[in-house]
Structures are given as C-alpha cells and as structure tokens.
C-alpha cells in the first residue's frame, strides 16, 4: 500500500512539474483555436500517464482509480489541453476487455451503441469531447444485451467541430453501420456504460480546476490593492474565498469517494455522489472567483476564464449534476425513508 501511495504521488508530482513547465495561456489559446497540442502529447506518452490504470501485465502502471486520483486532479488543475483523462479511461476499459492499447489520444463516447450482427455499429452521441483531434474512439455497444468494448479509427466516423463553453474540440457522433477496428465483450459495466466513469473523471477534474481558482484568488487577494490595502484584508473577500475553499474541499473529497467506489465496482454510486457534489462546487466556485477578480477576470486576456469555462463545461458532461441527482434521488425515494441511513453507513 505504501509503495502504491508513493507511485501515485510520484506520478502526480511529475505531472505537476510537467504541466507547470508546458501548459500556459498560449497553449490553451492554441488548442481552443483548433491546433492540437501535439508536442505536449508526445512528452506525456513518455511519462506513462495514459496507461496508468492499465494492469502491469498489459504493460501499464497498474494503478487503482484511488491511486490515480491525484494525477487526474492535477490534469484538471492545469486545464491540460489534451484528452489525457479520456485516454486513461479508454486504455483501462480496453485492457479490461483484453484488447490492444494503441498509441495516441483516444476519445470516449458515454452513450450505448448497437453492435450489429455483421460487426458494424449504429447509434449516436450528441457530443464527444476531443473527438476531432483523436485517432481513436472507444465506446460501449450492446449485442443481444451483452456489452462490448469497441475501438474505432478516425476514418470510421465523420466529425464536425461543435461550439462549446470550454472551446476544447468536441463533435457530435452519428454511426450508421460504422466499421469497428476491434471489439470484445466486457462484464460488470452496468446499464450506463462508461458514463459513470467519465462522470467521476469530470468530478475530479472539477476539483482540480477549483484548486487553481482558489490559488489564483488567494494570490490576487493578497496583491490587488484598493482603498489603500490588499483586498484580501476585507472580510467580505476573505469570507468569499473561504467559501471557495469549502467548495473546493467538498469537490476534492467527492472525487476521492468516486475513485473508491469505482475500485469497489460501484461506479454508478461514485458518479451519483461525486458529480452532484463537484458540479455544485463548480458553479459556486466559478461565481466566487469571478466576483473576487472583478472586471479584469472577465477579460479575454486574463487566465481565469480558461478555468471557469472548463468548470461550466465539465459539470455538463457525462451527465450533469442535476441528471445524476435525479438518478440518486430516484433510488433513495423508492427505497423509502428507513432505508436511507443504512445505505449511507454501508458504503
């Protein structure tokens, strides 16, 4: 366990240093304007992060989701402009189904598709993050009720870039007898396929981006002067930032909880709790940070919106906080009041 903890912390620290050196406003602008961060990706592959969740037998680092949490949070903290977390998820599910783990960035659709008798795919997804800039796509499709992991190459589907809040590349996906490169059955994913997994990832990325907002806000509070003193000396500002810290802490704990639930085979439960809690924090946190920064934080030149727009994007993806709250609410209400407390203490 101690060894695992070390690997997990080492990887996160390595990523932290790497992103501090490589991800800046210029790179974020470049990717938002449609040019992929190819250099960043090549160096990332060298760090082994993309196969962190893949078992050691299949050539990965064999980390549990709990071990990978710190790395995923670091990815969110820097708004790292590449589908790193998506590729980690894709590689994990491919290796779970004993499929080849390819090189390069992989997009993930969280919808369920139909695997036809001739081995082709049908189905659609209204929006897939990073699809236009990925060589591969991984999704789950059903054939006779059996879930299959499918990998498609970028020649197997058309993409058309969508306008999104984060301005990261997204595309709708429509498959009609689309060709599959590889597929294999997989057990134990549940009725929502990969959606809960990506929801947990988005919750963790949100917690990371909130850490960024918190640090930026504290720094600004200590340096920006008005009325002859740093604005961080005003209680109104202090209390707002303290609330931002509370929201950040709650999102962080929600993300850790999600990872533990995935490791225990309860991804749905993890997603219900984590996406709901982190999604709320995303909205409140972005609101506070913008209030602290005033007009300058609302300008294009300022770094703040590269994180707040991602918060607004991520909270909507893989099921919004409201969608997941409804799933949890349905479960809780139908089980009845007496069942609630035991369900809380049995996790």
């Amino acid at each position, binding site marked *: 366990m101690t060894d695992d903890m070390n690997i997990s912390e080492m990887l996160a620290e390595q990523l932290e240093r790497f992103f501090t050196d490589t991800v800046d406003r210029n790179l974020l602008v470049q990717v938002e304007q449609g040019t992929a961060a190819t250099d960043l990706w090549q160096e990332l592959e060298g760090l082994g992060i993309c196969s962190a969740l893949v078992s050691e037998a299949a050539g990965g680092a064999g980390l549990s989701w709990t071990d990978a949490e710190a790395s995923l*949070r670091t990815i969110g903290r820097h708004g790292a402009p590449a589908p790193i977390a998506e590729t980690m998820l894709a590689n994990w599910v491919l290796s779970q189904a004993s499929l080849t783990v390819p090189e390069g960035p992989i997009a993930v659709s969280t919808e369920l598709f139909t695997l036809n008798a001739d081995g082709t795919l049908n189905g659609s997804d209204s929006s897939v993050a990073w699809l236009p800039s990925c060589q591969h796509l991984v999704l789950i499709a059903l054939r006779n009720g059996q879930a299959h992991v499918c990998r498609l190459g970028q020649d197997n589907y058309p993409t058309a870039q969508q306008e999104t809040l984060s301005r990261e590349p997204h595309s709708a996906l429509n498959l009609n007898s689309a060709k599959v490169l590889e597929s294999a059955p997989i057990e134990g994913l549940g009725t929502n396929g990969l959606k809960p997994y990506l929801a947990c990832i988005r919750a963790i990325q949100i917690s990371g981006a909130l850490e960024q907002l918190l640090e930026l806000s504290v720094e600004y*509070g200590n340096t920006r002067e008005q009325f002859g003193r740093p604005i961080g000396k005003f209680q109104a*500002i202090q209390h707002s930032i303290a609330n931002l*810290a*509370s929201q950040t*802490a709650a999102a962080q704990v929600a993300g850790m*909880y999600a990872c533990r639930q995935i490791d225990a085979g309860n991804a749905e439960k993890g997603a219900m*709790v984590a996406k709901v809690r982190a999604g709320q924090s995303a909205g409140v946190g972005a609101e506070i940070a913008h209030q602290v920064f005033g007009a300058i934080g609302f300008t294009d030149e300022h770094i703040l919106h590269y994180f707040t727009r991602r918060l607004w994007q991520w909270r909507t993806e893989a099921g919004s906080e409201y969608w997941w709250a409804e*799933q949890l609410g349905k479960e809780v209400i139908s089980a009845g009041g007496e069942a609630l407390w035991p369900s*809380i203490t049995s996790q």
Partner: protein
Amino acid sequence: MTSPFRFNPLQIPAELEPLRQEVRAFLLEAKQEWSGWKVGHSWTGFDREFSLEVGKRGWIGMTWPKQYGGHDRSSLERYVVVEEMLAVGAPLGSHWFGDRQSGPLLLRLGTEEQRQRLLPSIVKGEISFCIGLSEPDSGSDLASIRSKAIKVDGGYRLSGRKIWTTNAHLSEYMIGLFRTGAGTSKIKHEGLSQFLIDMSSSGIEIRPIADLTGEGHFNEIVFDDVFVPDNMIVGQEGNGWVQATSELTFERSQPDRFLSCYPLLPLTIDALNQQTNDRLSTRQIGQSVADLIVLREMSLSVLGQLDEGKTPSQEAALVKDLGNSYEQRMPTLVRELLDSPGIVERGDMLSELQGYLTQSVPSFSLRGGTREILRGIIAKGLGLK
C-alpha cells in the same frame, strides 16, 4: 502547487457492523417514546435517564483508558455509536459535552486526581458538563473575556459572568475560561486559564435565558467571589487560550455539525412517496443525500488525521462551515418539497420536527464558533494576510 488541505479517506471497517446493529436495536426501542419536538433537540436535548442507559451499555467515554472507567475502544467505534445516535436525534445533552469535550480535555491535560475523580462518573452518564466561554461583552471576540480568577491562598476566587452556556442549570461541572493574568493590547489571549468548577459552589447564580423557541436551554451564570481550589485548574495557568481552542478542533469536525436536522430527511422521503413525485423534488433529494455522503467522508477523514496525532484545524473548520450550512438548509428543503404549514401539530412527528428545527437552525452557525469566525480562520489558513 498542491492542495491547501488534506482529506485522506478513512473507511469504517466491516468489523464494526455488529456494534452498529447493537446501537441501532437499542435506539429502535428507545425512540418509540420520543416526540418530534424532542428529536429536534438531538444532541442538545438533556435526558439524564437516557444518558445513564447509554453509559450502562459502555457508549460514553468509549475511547478512554479502562483505568478511568473508559472502554479502550477506537475512535471509529465511538464514531459509529455517535452517528447512529445523531441519525435518530437521540437526546445526548446530558453526557454530550463531557464525552465530546471535557473528558478528552481532562485526559490530555488534567491531573491524575481530576481524572480519577471525574472521568468514571462521566462514563456512567451520572454527571454533566457545561462549557463557560462567552460573556455578555465577549461573544465572537472570545479573547476579550474579563471574568477573573484571582490567586488566593489554596486556590482562586472567580468573579464575573458567563453567558449562552447550554444546560448550565442541569450540569454538575463547568469548564470555564477565566483571566488569571493581564493580556496585552496586542495579545489579548495571554493570561487565560481553564478551571473545573463545581456548579454547586457557593457564589454561583444561574439564570436561565428563554430562547426564541420558548424554552430555556442556555443560561447566564454569575460568579460572585467563587472559591476554586488549586487542584481544579486545568492544564497550565495562562495556557487556557491554546487549550480551549485546540478543543474546538475536536468539536468542529464531528457529525453533530451536519446531522442535527437529519431526522427530517427520511420523514420527508416517506411523505414524498405519498404524493405524485416530480423530477425537481427527486433531484433535490438526490442532491441532499450526495452532500451528506461527502460531509461524512470529510468528517471521517478529519477523525483519521486526529488519530494520527495531526492537528487538522483547517479541515475541521471547513467541515463545520459546510456542515452547518447543510443542516441549516434542511427545513427550507422540506418546505420546498412538501406543503408545510406554519402549524405545529403535536403528535405528528414531521410537523413537530419541522416546527422546532425551523426555529432552532439559526443557532447552528452560531454555536461552536460563528460562520464568520470560521471563515476568518479558513481565510487565514489559506494565507490571506
């Protein structure tokens, strides 16, 4: 950059399930007699008989050493017992302050004589403690207290006034903070000391203060030249500020900081099942449950850090800030989901609970450090200068 706080997860091991079931079975029977109004009081509700029963079962002073009547059990075992009690709004008031705060204080800093004399009675549920901090002119600005302890032969003479002391009129002992030396204008919190005060001492006058619910839980206490012998000072003279504030770290992260309104939630769910449900109600319930699960995770994490000998003051303040807001919102949530008239129907569990809690929730973000004080602590911890 790394996170400015740490919340390493702590899980309750499956071995503690039998203990949980034992507590649940005990409470299932005990709670049959409780009205909604009583349940609403939860850990502030004073019921000596109930505390004696809890003591008999070994659920007070659980983590304390056997030599003081304790049970040498883990802090996780205590957590299980406490959260089960809070989930049904059990009336813990008679033993709560001794179990949560004063007993642990004596274990850390008390003399052997103080421990021998008091801990076994706390464990049995026989005696109650109250906490004397605030004064008429010192609320949030606690360091400005003026009540004095003047050194005399063989002890101290206390004079001054304490206020907002919950259950002082029912307690055998107070842990009170008094000024034993002058603070400076810059460092007001110097020269404070904690005393163990026998509430039957002569010179103590207790005046109940009715609160807005019409009841009198808290009090003003006048100390008129009250003699306290030397052996009743707690810890070091002059070190009272550090001692009293470190107690608060234990206090701020526990489940009583987010479960005070919990009994409303299952009743609301049952009421929702009696009506046609809409999606927004379903979402609101889901959100409330998700928030609760995360708060519990945070609280357990702080417990784990305390067990490791760390002082997670920042994390504890974050738990209380979020927790108080969560529990404080619960009666409003009930009103959003159900038609909840401004009528307290005696005998109706939900109506009594809602009626009491609607009126008492404003105190949740005042007791144990106001929201403003907590947010000040958090801001300072973040490095806002």
